[in-house]
Each structure stands twice: as structure tokens, then as C-alpha cells.
């Protein structure tokens, strides 16, 4: 039986990818960011999954205004690395897990989530930067990836509670797949940041740290936070944090199982315009 062994949460700032691709990781500015991921790279070597279910958002890359899916699951065999305007990042292409992805789509749609199934999707920094942070610069990614894109660009975006419940549906779907597969689920984006208007540059360390606390301790309460609180306190792009609730909703304790173990937590300001937050939880 397939099982979710752990969840990983991380910001996905494009400048982090650029810093790696341009060899700037040893600069003091970036060293402060990457130092927080050294334990994570050790951890994932020791806890290599077969498949990562990677929740991210597209940043006007694969999806223009012609087509805005609230939730899109990638069921293709592979996904190309997108050209976001300065050429594709020099990282390996992403290998999918079509059978498991199709199984999850089938099950989650039958649980009344109205997914869009996608078989062609170039993936942008939202997906590749978390892979780079966790895995460094390998010749190929060490596991398969099921990309799961959430609309957080055009309002209304799905509510925190909808995301949290979706995570629960995804867990059920994965556990009903009868091959023995070690799956991790990653939630990406955030933390506090605002990229637009005279208020650009907003950071809220207090909000972010309370978010991390509550994500571990009481995700159900956190899921009730209305959008407007994210915008007001964590900036207009801080809303990406709802994606972390999908990953958190898929953990065993939400369905009555044991509490997860906190393996790692890291927080740093800034990376470019953004507060970097990161957490690893293992199921017990």
C-alpha cells in the first residue's frame, strides 16, 4: 500500500533558483538562506521518497488568463522546465508518476474535488526551486514528482479550509493505491511577501512564526484563517501559504493518527522580497 511518510514545507522564491544556477550560493547574503537547507539535504538522502506530491502554484507560466484551473493535477510522464522569460533553469526535467497521479485524480474527483487533469505543463520556479533547495544540483531528480498546481493568482483562490480538506482527500487516495510507494507531500510558496504596489517589500516575522507554530500544533484552526488576514498581515502574495495546508491536511494526525515529528524548522529574512520559511514533518 502506498503511504505518506513525511511532509515538507518551503518558500519557492525565484531568486533562490537564480542564486544556485549562477553559483552565488557562497555569497554571505545567500549563505544565510542555504544554511537552513543543509540539514534538509541530509535528511532527504536518508529518507528518499519514491514520489513527491508537490503542491505549488504556476506564476503565469503554463497558464495564461485563457485558462485558470483552481486545482490542476499533472498526470503526464514528464514535465519540461519552463522558460519564464530568461530561458529555462538549467535543472533536470521532471519525471512524473502517471499511474499514481491518475489514481489520485480518480479518487479525489470521486471525493467531490473538481480537479483539472493536465498532461502538458511546463513547470516554473514554483516547482523547481523547492526541488533545488532540497536536492541541490543533481544530474537528475532522485524521485518522481506529481505536480499539483493551485490557483493563487486570480481571486478568489480556494479557501484555507478547502485546501486542508483536499489534503485529507489526497491522503485517502494515496493510501488506496495498492503498490508499495513511499510518498512525500510538499507544500510550497510564501511566507510573507508582497510584490506589488507602494506596499511592496512587506514582511511579517511575527505572523510567519505563528503560522509555523500553528501549522504544526493546530492546523485545523489555522485552516479557518480567512484570506483577508493573509493579505493584510502577510502581504498580497503571502496568500500562497494556503498551499501548505494541503500538505498538512494529508498528514496522519488529521485523520486521527499519531502526531508528526518535527524534524527541522528554519526561518530567515530576506530572500529577495520574501521571508523564507521551511519545515519538515515526519509521520509516525
Amino acid at each position: 500500500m502506498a503511504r505518506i511518510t513525511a511532509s515538507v514545507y518551503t518558500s519557492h522564491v525565484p531568486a533562490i533558483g537564480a542564486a544556485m544556477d549562477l553559483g552565488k550560493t557562497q555569497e554571505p547574503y545567500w549563505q544565510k538562506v542555504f544554511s537552513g537547507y543543509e540539514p534538509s539535504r541530509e535528511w532527504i538522502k536518508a529518507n528518499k521518497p519514491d514520489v513527491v506530491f508537490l503542491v505549488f502554484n504556476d506564476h503565469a507560466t503554463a497558464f495564461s488568463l485563457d485558462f485558470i484551473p483552481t486545482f490542476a493535477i499533472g498526470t503526464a510522464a514528464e514535465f519540461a522546465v519552463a522558460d519564464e522569460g530568461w530561458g529555462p533553469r538549467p535543472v533536470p526535467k521532471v519525471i512524473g508518476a502517471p499511474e499514481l497521479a491518475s489514481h489520485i485524480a480518480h479518487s479525489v474527483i470521486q471525493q467531490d474535488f473538481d480537479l483539472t487533469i493536465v498532461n502538458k505543463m511546463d513547470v516554473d520556479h514554483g516547482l523547481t526551486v523547492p526541488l533545488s533547495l532540497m536536492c541541490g544540483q543533481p544530474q537528475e531528480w532522485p524521485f518522481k514528482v506529481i505536480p499539483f498546481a493551485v490557483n493563487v493568482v486570480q481571486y478568489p483562490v480556494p479557501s484555507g479550509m478547502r485546501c486542508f480538506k483536499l489534503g485529507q482527500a489526497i491522503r485517502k487516495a494515496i493510501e488506496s493505491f495498492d503498490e508499495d510507494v513511499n510518498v512525500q507531500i510538499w507544500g510550497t510558496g510564501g511566507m510573507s511577501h508582497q510584490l506589488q504596489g507602494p506596499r511592496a517589500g512587506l514582511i511579517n516575522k511575527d505572523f510567519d512564526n505563528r503560522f509555523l507554530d500553528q501549522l504544526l500544533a493546530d492546523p485545523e484552526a489555522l485552516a479557518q484563517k480567512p484570506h483577508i488576514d493573509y493579505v493584510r498581515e502577510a502581504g498580497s502574495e503571502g496568500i500562497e501559504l494556503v498551499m501548505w495546508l494541503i500538505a498538512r491536511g494529508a498528514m496522519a494526525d488529521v485523520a486521527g493518527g499519531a502526531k508528526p515529528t518535527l524534524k527541522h524548522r528554519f526561518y530567515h529574512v530576506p530572500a529577495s522580497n520574501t521571508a523564507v520559511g521551511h519545515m519538515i514533518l515526519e509521520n509516525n
Partner: protein
Amino acid sequence: MPLDKPYTDIPGTTIFDAEQSRKGYWLNQFCMSLMKAENRERFKKDERAYLDEWAMTEEQKQAVLTRDMNRMIAAGGNIYFLAKIGATDGKSFQQMAGSMTGMSEDAYREMMIAGGRPSTWTPPAKDKP
């Protein structure tokens, strides 16, 4: 339209909702076109001519020509779309975001290193309507 839109009173912030999206449709689709190298070349060669191929308003075109990001956002632009213009110009996301604040590039970078803008920030009196 009595919709749940509690996000209109946040200072210095425009939420990209269906209304903005409708307003900015062609501006944003123009931006998407810059994801192709050949279109970036054509745009750089003659910006005005390239813009004239799109069903954009004159206001939107002027906002692009003058690289006034706040004006583009007011005209329906979304930052992730507008970022393709920045990429074409070789600007970083930090340069783009900073350009909307009225701060110099250095001052904005220093503010971020010092911990960013507080969420309690309100615009200076002169900017208020």
C-alpha cells in the same frame, strides 16, 4: 455586486480579481507573449509597433512604454504577468517590486535586509487621496 470583497481598503495594494483580470486581459496576454524569445526580440526592436498588435488601451500601452509598474497594475496588470517585461529588460523581481515603492534600488534592498516593510505600514500623507 454584493460579493465578499473585503480586500479593497488595504493601503498600496491591488488584489487581482476577476474585475481586474477583465480590465487587464490584453495587457497580461501581451506580457505572456514575451515568454517566447522571438517575441522579446520583436518587442525590443520596436516597442510601440509590437504593442500596437495587441487590443490594449492607450493607457496600458503608455504604462508599459514608461515602465510604470503601478500604472500597469492599476490598468489591470498582474505582477506575475508583468514580470515577463522585467525579464525582457533584464530586471530582477527585487528591482521590479522596489520600483513601485518610490524608493531607490539601494534603499529598497537595505529595507529588505533590515527585515522588510512592517505590515502596519501606511502610505505617507502626500500619497493619500
